[in-house]
């Protein structure tokens, strides 16, 4: 979503993005003409007149699970967004019985919070795992 019109979205998709991604952008390119949505989400830069790089992960109940906002010159890391979604999905599936420590990726060890784990995280999780 950007403040561009759907007409400019079409031009960008058809003339440039479709050359990067076969078949073009697979998801809806939303127009925030007037910046009302960017303003609602707190990421609209009124001085520059643009929506900054806000990224919101919204769960099936419509609840915001996480967000990230970057200044325009620095692009996002899509793999990190996917990792966060997978982590939130795991937490949701286990109803919070399992949580994902720093550096967690799918297939890696989760933590099961409870009285038995208090003061014992150091036994099962090493700081090096944060950088895997």
């Amino acid at each position: 979503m950007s403040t561009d019109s759907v007409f400019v979205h079409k031009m960008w998709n058809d003339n440039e993005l479709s050359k990067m991604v076969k078949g073009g952008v697979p998801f809806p390119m939303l127009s925030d003409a007037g910046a009302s949505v960017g303003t609602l989400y707190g990421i609209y830069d009124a001085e520059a007149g643009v929506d900054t790089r806000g990224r919101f992960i919204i769960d099936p109940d419509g609840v915001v699970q996480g967000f990230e906002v970057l200044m325009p010159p620095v692009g996002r890391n899509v793999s990190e967004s996917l990792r966060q979604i997978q982590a939130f999905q795991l937490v949701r599936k286990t109803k919070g019985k399992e949580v994902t420590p720093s550096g967690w990726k799918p297939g890696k060890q989760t933590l099961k919070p409870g009285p038995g784990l208090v003061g014992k995280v150091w036994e099962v999780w090493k700081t090096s795992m944060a950088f895997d």
Partner: protein
Amino acid sequence: MIQVGKKAPDFTADAYHKGKFVSETLSDHLGKWVVLCFYPGDFTFV
């Protein structure tokens, strides 16, 4: 202001999707995970 753990504000917006102009409403996607991405502008470099 957006807070984690709180409802995402609902909105409806025009969109371009696979060759068509459509209307998208956030709450129509309840039951699915949604990633909402904002960016500064079409044809920018990053």
